[in-house]
């Protein structure tokens, strides 16, 4: 049951709207209930071939020899694809925003870094014939020591998972093995706190489990292009990733998707499209590459595991005065998107609370498991679990009601957040109050009267003095702020008007166009802008 609390923040809203706020039927509902919504696999193409991959049996091994000669002769096989057939057989997803180094092949060549890593792709007339050919591929592995624990991976002498990152950590800002957050003097605040609580939290990998598995169908189209039906959650990410891997201009492809059987983050990685298109290119025929359910569960990327240590200082009156966090994102064998999540996680600290001293070290760590990727709540879900279990323990420690404890520590408009931006448009206190009301959870009157819009700012807006660490390089340049950060808190300006139309003449080539066919979405992410 859903209740709209229109009484709250009514003065900040114009509710005189016609279509917005109505429970209008979904545009796609009729298609859904009649089974006619077009998913990628609902396209039947003449003479379609089927692609399956040979996956590594080992978590970490050198490939001594890969022999496909018998498989090539197997009945119904149209094409065997090896790493050497992939034009640009090394990629990292966020290279499109210039973040991170290419670290993952489409098909492993000299080494496998996780169990299930694709080594050979087989294109055959039928799935059965592809399976039969898979059994005929002979692979000579030299097993290597594997590492599965994020903290073990950081120890000296740990097996190197991915030679692109020999320390088993993603590299931030070209030097750092972690994303840092420093706000105030945490160690001093911990020393003077009435109670200090340090705890360890852990989340293991989680599968997106969409009812539709990842997949795509690629086919030669008229005029030398390729039509691609795809389950992707990010159409242009997939277009440009394929353009880069296959080293062709992105307008070689006509991608069609948009109706997807669940994603939850598990369909961002462009898992099937590059090999599927390559299969179509090499055979001149439509090719279908769809994950089976076991493939989806074990070798499709999960929500990555996280290990989190939190050390908090709290006063007897319930104020949390310090929060020190060390977190490890288990990226698996390749980066995919975990590097991004670690930065998002750092920004999220210390949760929706105003704490004057916050310290975070967030690591993206490589291990010999299936590469992780985004999932609903990416970078935040496990941290919220840790923070909110911690808040409950702290409330218990100081003998406060857990609801009131959260209201007391909640951020409010005008407070300074640990990433050094002012809190605006906050509403945590009201959520706690309304949830308490719904659950018939008694709150004392003073806590019922508190507001996100009152009593913030002032001393709570101060950037507390942060000690300089001895290894610290020179201070960072002034930060570039977003439009919103510059805007006054109370105004409600409409988004900027659209930019003028582009010139009709053909665009001139950009000076820094990448060598591959893909357009980079941005060239500044992750690099210092002064």
């Amino acid at each position, binding site marked *: 049951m859903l209740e709209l609390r229109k009484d709250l923040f009514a003065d900040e809203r114009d509710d005189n709207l016609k279509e917005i706020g109505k429970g209008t039927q979904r545009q796609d509902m009729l298609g859904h209930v009649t089974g006619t919504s077009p998913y990628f696999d609902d396209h039947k193409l003449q003479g379609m071939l089927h692609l*399956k991959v040979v996956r590594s049996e080992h978590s970490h091994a050198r490939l001594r020899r890969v022999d496909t000669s018998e498989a090539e002769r197997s*009945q119904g096989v149209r094409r065997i694809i090896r790493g050497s057939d992939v034009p640009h057989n090394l990629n990292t997803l966020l290279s499109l925003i210039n973040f991170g180094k290419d670290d993952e092949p489409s098909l492993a060549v000299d080494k496998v870094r996780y169990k299930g890593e694709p080594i050979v792709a087989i294109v055959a007339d*039928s*799935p*059965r014939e592809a*399976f*039969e050919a*898979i*059994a005929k591929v002979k692979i000579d592995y030299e097993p290597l020591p594997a590492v599965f624990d994020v903290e073990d991976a950081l120890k000296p002498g740990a097996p190197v998972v991915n030679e692109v990152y020999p320390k088993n950590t993603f590299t931030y800002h070209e030097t750092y093995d972690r994303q840092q957050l420093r706000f105030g003097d945490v160690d001093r605040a911990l020393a003077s706190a009435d109670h200090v609580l340090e705890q360890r939290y852990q989340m293991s990998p989680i599968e997106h489990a969409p009812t539709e598995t990842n997949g795509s169908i690629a086919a030669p189209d008229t005029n030398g292009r390729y039509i691609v039906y795809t389950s992707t959650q990010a159409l242009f990410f997939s277009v440009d990733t394929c353009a880069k891997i296959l080293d062709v201009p992105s307008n070689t492809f006509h991608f069609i998707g948009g109706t997807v059987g669940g994603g939850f983050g598990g369909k961002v990685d462009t898992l099937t499209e590059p090999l599927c298109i390559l299969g179509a290119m090499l055979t001149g025929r439509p090719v279908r590459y769809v994950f*089976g359910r*076991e493939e989806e569960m074990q070798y499709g990327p999960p929500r990555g595991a996280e290990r989190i240590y939190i050390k908090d200082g709290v006063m007897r009156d319930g104020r949390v005065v310090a929060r020190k966090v060390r977190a490890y994102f288990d990226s698996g064998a390749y980066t995919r998107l975990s590097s991004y999540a670690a930065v998002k996680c750092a920004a999220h600290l210390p949760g929706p609370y105003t704490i004057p001293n916050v310290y975070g070290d967030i690591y993206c760590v490589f291990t010999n498991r299936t590469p992780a990727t985004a999932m609903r709540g990416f970078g935040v879900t496990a941290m919220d679990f840790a923070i909110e279990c911690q808040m409950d323990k702290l409330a218990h420690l100081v003998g406060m009601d857990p609801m009131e404890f959260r209201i007391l520590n909640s951020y409010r408009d005008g407070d300074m957040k640990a990433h050094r931006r002012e809190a605006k448009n906050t509403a945590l206190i009201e959520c706690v109050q309304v949830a308490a009301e719904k659950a018939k959870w008694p709150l004392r009157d003073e806590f019922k009267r508190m507001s996100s819009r009152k009593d913030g700012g002032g001393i709570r807006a101060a950037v507390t003095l942060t000690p300089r660490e001895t290894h610290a390089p020179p201070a960072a340049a002034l930060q570039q702020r977003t439009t919103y950060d510059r805007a006054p808190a109370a105004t409600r300006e409409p988004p900027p008007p659209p930019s003028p139309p582009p010139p009709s003449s053909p665009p001139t080539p950009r000076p820094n166009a990448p060598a591959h066919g893909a357009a980079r979405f941005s060239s500044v992410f992750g690099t210092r802008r002064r």
Partner: protein
Amino acid sequence: MPVTVKTFTSTNEAAAALSSDRSARYLGGGTLVMRALNEGDISISTVVRASDHALTRIDTGGSRITLGAGVTYARILADRDLGFLHAPARSIGGPAVRNMGTVGGNLFAPNPYGDFTVAMLALDAVVSVQGGLGSREVPIEEFLQSRDRQAGTLVLAISFAKPGNAEAFRYRKIARIKPKGGAVITLAAYLPVNGSRIVGARVALGSMAPTPIRARAAERALEGRSLDASTIDAAAAAAVEGTSPSDSAIASAWYRREIVSVHLKRLLSGQE
């Protein structure tokens, strides 16, 4: 090589086709063999079927109940005479699986499946198999012990003595997911009472070993006693004896060992 489907009218021919071809599997309800084919099991290249009506017969007329190997769980659920088997039948799959899956196939279902077989074990069933020279009867325990070698065997039917009192049969499947989930453990007990004493107690456990097994120590604790609190405690305490559960995606061996006595106690005392 494509899959060849061979359909026979007689079970004799089907059994012969199965025993002469190592790559042949018998197709019952499809929940095991079709799944294997879908997932690329190329060790199967022949699928054998038999259309003999005996395979789908339910016989509840005499002192023994006989279920043809091809009888589905839905058929059992529709049969009033088999009311005591409704709980195990309903504990399997969703409705579609119950319309397809068969009691014969269940004998081959690995953990966490095979719940119906746990019930059959508690009822001390006999499995009729068709060999090259005709049919023979194999006690279910013996059948399960040699299950790995039975891939080429054609099961015809499963039969057991009709319980004198349906109340004497109890069944419970412990699953994380409701109402349909893979078993953490499965328990079935047959406790016939003579006067006030249990005579011929049989307790069977699923997911406590590679195949369903009898809990002999628990049976001994029940035998000849009345089902009172101390008997139940003694049986529950003995439940774990002789078991060898495994770690799996659903639960660990440790957990299975820890809870088997709790659930046996609840089953015997009728607690939720």
